[in-house]
């Protein structure tokens, strides 16, 4: 083997080791723990992924960090985002479907949170308990986003996109609304394939 080849192999091995050493070790390899740091809107890890079927299905578990109090009703009812996707070749403030959540009235409320042609549509879906695993699903049909919570169809929100083939990027946990997270917020999400 030539020296140049050996040097290339050495460089590749170093790159691989550097990348591998940054990976956290989760309890369940299929579960990702998203953390929204105090003062932030976005969660980490920051991921880029595309939707790959007509159903987005996942399990999510909030913990006690989902409880917060802004002492301001308007701010308290700002919807935080759990997960969803932007519709075909659209930006998510044009056409998208997500689950939203808020701590309000001493309960963790789950919402359907969509943009349809730039107009925001919100619908209450139900409440969940911190520390409990719940099942979430959005089905993409030709003319609607169908929301399921714990395998029960709750609502259907009209879709207005005439594109079919294209990019549908996934949207991950986000705190806000207007205000950032008042403390670290942790959400465990397991994708169901």
């Amino acid at each position, binding site marked *: 083997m030539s020296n140049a*080849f050996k040097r290339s192999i050495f460089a*590749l091995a170093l790159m691989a080791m550097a990348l591998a050493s940054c990976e956290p070790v989760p309890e369940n390899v299929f579960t990702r723990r998203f953390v929204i740091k105090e003062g932030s809107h976005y969660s980490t890890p920051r991921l880029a992924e*595309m939707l790959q079927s007509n159903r987005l299905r996942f399990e999510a578990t909030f913990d006690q960090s989902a409880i917060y109090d802004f002492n301001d009703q308007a701010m308290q009812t700002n919807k935080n985002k759990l997960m969803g996707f932007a519709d075909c070749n659209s930006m998510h403030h044009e056409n998208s479907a997500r689950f939203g959540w808020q701590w309000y009235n001493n309960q963790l409320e789950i919402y359907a949170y969509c943009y349809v042609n730039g107009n925001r549509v919100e619908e209450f879906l139900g409440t969940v308990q911190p520390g409990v695993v719940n099942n979430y699903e959005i089905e993409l049909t030709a003319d609607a986003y169908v929301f399921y919570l714990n395998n029960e169809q709750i609502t259907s929100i009209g879709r207005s996109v005439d594109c079919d083939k294209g990019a549908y990027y996934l949207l991950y946990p986000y705190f806000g609304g207007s205000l950032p997270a008042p403390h670290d917020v942790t959400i465990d999400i397991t994708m169901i394939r």
Partner: protein
Amino acid sequence: MRTLIVLLILTVVSTTSRGQHMWLSMLSEYTIAGPQYGAAILMETNKKLGAGLFYQADIQSPAEVKTNNTFYGLQLQIPLAKSEKINFFGTVRGGLVNDKFAVIVPGVETRINAGKRLAVGFAMSMRMNYPSVLGKLTYRIF
């Protein structure tokens, strides 16, 4: 989207017009969603730059989803390290899943020559934000 497809086709054509080898591969990829099987054809220049087409799908559809997650499209490779017996490539696969959802899959591939025309390949990619492992048996047509 059409512009992107035209650009990709132009890239493939410009690469393959100087191609020196054509590789035909049978492949199996294990993703977080399960195994997929398929085939690929690749044109490769003397500098081992490559472009080609691939098709892969689940053998058994998950009953709840009722789709076999077909994934087809264009594949590009650039050499990272080269030798007579073993080569390392950076790869990008881009295409449609389930005839609808556009995805781009980056990866790295090792190809070991096992004869004059036969080679085996091992690749790691990021599918659905999780690592996937791909193995392939490759035959050099010319």
